């Protein structure tokens, strides 16, 4: 397991305005500007702006109800499904505002995948769990291509060796950690460019968590990953950048090392030292 050195070299710390991306040596994948979200009368996000770096892991941390999951679900418009939700602001992806009227939400979601808190494999076989989306999206038509894709996706998710002999078994017969990796394999099978993860390890035991964390670390070579986590150590271990959310605002956003070693804000420091949350 790879761990980041929390007492890393302090000269690397670059102070930037809170909402901008901390470092400029990587391309920006998504740009969020002044994002406000209401659930009915209750405002969940108060004008959040943030840049997401390409091929990096960005962690969103903060106490329960701080808006980090809401923010994540805005990035692929999963929040559209909730009744009574109102969203203002812009989320730029591939030079387009994903909330613009001409953007198709189904198309968008095939480019920005998501992995959920609780593993949610479909009640189908392992094979069909992965083949389902490429089939309906019309990405793969030939049977042999599909078999290749299933194998490739399972290999990328580090599950192939464990399941290659029982691809026709129901996905639900796997253990929790395996199910979550199946869901990751399912998400990457449609080749999205961004993967959103909503506390992907909160329902897993420590061993399974370690496997998934390692997987995330490998996936960042090809994917831009945004991960919500409750677990500060996990953010420190896997993320290049970390944003601390509090009461629907980003309090601090910088590279993970500086956020954990030299927080600029008192609130951040209180949170990471365990004074509340």
């Amino acid at each position, binding site marked *: 397991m790879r761990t980041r050195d929390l007492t890393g070299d302090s000269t690397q710390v670059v102070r930037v305005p809170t909402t901008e991306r901390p470092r400029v040596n990587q391309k920006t994948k998504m740009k969020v500007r002044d994002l406000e979200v209401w659930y009915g009368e209750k405002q969940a996000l108060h004008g959040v702006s943030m840049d997401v770096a390409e091929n990096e892991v960005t962690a969103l941390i903060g106490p329960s109800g701080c808006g980090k999951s809401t923010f994540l679900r805005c990035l692929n418009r999963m929040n559209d499904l909730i009744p009574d939700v109102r969203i203002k602001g812009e989320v730029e*992806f591939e030079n387009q505002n994903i909330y613009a009227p001409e953007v198709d939400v189904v198309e*968008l979601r095939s480019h920005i995948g998501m992995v959920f808190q609780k593993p949610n494999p479909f009640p189908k076989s392992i094979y069909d769990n992965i083949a389902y989306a490429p089939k309906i999206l019309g990405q793969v038509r030939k049977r042999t291509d599909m078999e290749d894709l299933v194998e490739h996706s399972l290999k990328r998710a580090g599950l192939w060796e464990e399941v290659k002999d029982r691809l026709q078994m129901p996905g639900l017969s796997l253990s929790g950690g395996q199910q979550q990796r199946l869901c990751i394999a399912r998400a990457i099978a449609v*080749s999205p460019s961004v993967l959103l993860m909503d506390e992907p390890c909160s329902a897993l035991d420590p061993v399974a968590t370690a496997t998934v964390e390692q997987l995330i670390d490998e996936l960042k070579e090809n994917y831009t990953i945004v991960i919500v986590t409750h677990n500060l150590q996990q953010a420190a271990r896997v993320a290049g950048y970390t944003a601390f959310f509090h009461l629907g605002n980003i309090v601090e956003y910088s590279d993970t090392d500086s956020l954990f070693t030299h927080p600029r804000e008192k609130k951040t420091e209180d949170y990471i030292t365990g004074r509340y949350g």
Partner: protein
Amino acid sequence: MSQGITLSPSRQLKKRYRAEKRFKAYCIGALVLAMAFLVLFFTDMIRQGYSAFVQTEIEVEVTYNEDTVKFTNESVREEVSPLISRAFYRTIPRRVDANPELMGTTETRWLTATAHVDQYRKGYSDRLDPELKATLDRLDSEGRVSYGFNSGLFFSGDSKIPSNAGLWSAFVGSFYVMIVVLLVSFPIGVATAIYLEEFAPDNRFTQGIEININNLAAVPSILFGLLGLAIFINFFGVPRSSALAGGLTLSLMTLPVIIISTRAALKAVPQNIRQGAQAVGASRWQAIRDHVLPLSLPGILTGTIIGIAQAMGETAPLLLIGMIAYIPDAPTSMTEAATVLPAQIFTWSGMPEGAYVSLTAAGILVLLSLLITLNATAVILRNRFERRW
């Protein structure tokens, strides 16, 4: 791989959206179809039945004397006499007995016309003697024919004379049957539910009782009729056709409805209410009696009303225990032969005269309004008093 991504729908996606639209259209279509059935059904019943709520009445002079008491149809002028319902002539001797001062007098009264006249006036049938038609038209032009509210539909019993047939005996019969159903199925149903939900250990036997109850809720109603016939009537000797036999049979059918809804109501009361009561020293039974039952009462009553409404519309088992008898006078006890509303509707629907078609439909409208009132009461009760936890 991020090169050239467009977020507007691709050709392939447009095709998928067309499939989406088709599927949604099927779903809407199905719901619209179901609603259309409902609308068609109600308009049809109202169209067939509304006219039976009024009846043709004719203003005539009625003469009371020695002769007309014997030959009652001579009490009105000869050419008008066949227009008037036979049911009136029957009442003359009784009326004169009760009011001797009428003897030798003539009074002007509005009398119910025969079903033939009524059907002709309402445009259902043209089979009226031409001479009678002429008389009727003459009376009509004199303003001596009109429609009056058919109070007999509600306040008289069954009759072989359609213009005189009403639902009164059926009302009384249904009332008796429902009393029996309530007295038998409510206490047993609630007690069963309390046992299963609050006391029963989770073992094979309990699961068996549960499955058995769910099965009873789905057993064809006619089989309950066979039970009623073989056990209540043939074995225990409960009088055939009686409200008691009908009520006992329907009780067994209503029991599962009450048990299932009472269990749901008990289950809805959170566990911490029971624990809270027991924590202050109440026994299990005291906690249920003083806290759980009062809280779940609205749900229990709602389920009971729905069960009663179901029993009130049930016919098939009652046919087998003889509750399709001809009952002109309302029963006065549980053990007399009786009929109920749906059975009366069934009897009327089998009558050959055309007038009974409207009567049947009118009876249906009355039954449906009763049932809808009952169910609406249940829904209001639930919405008003049920607590969400």
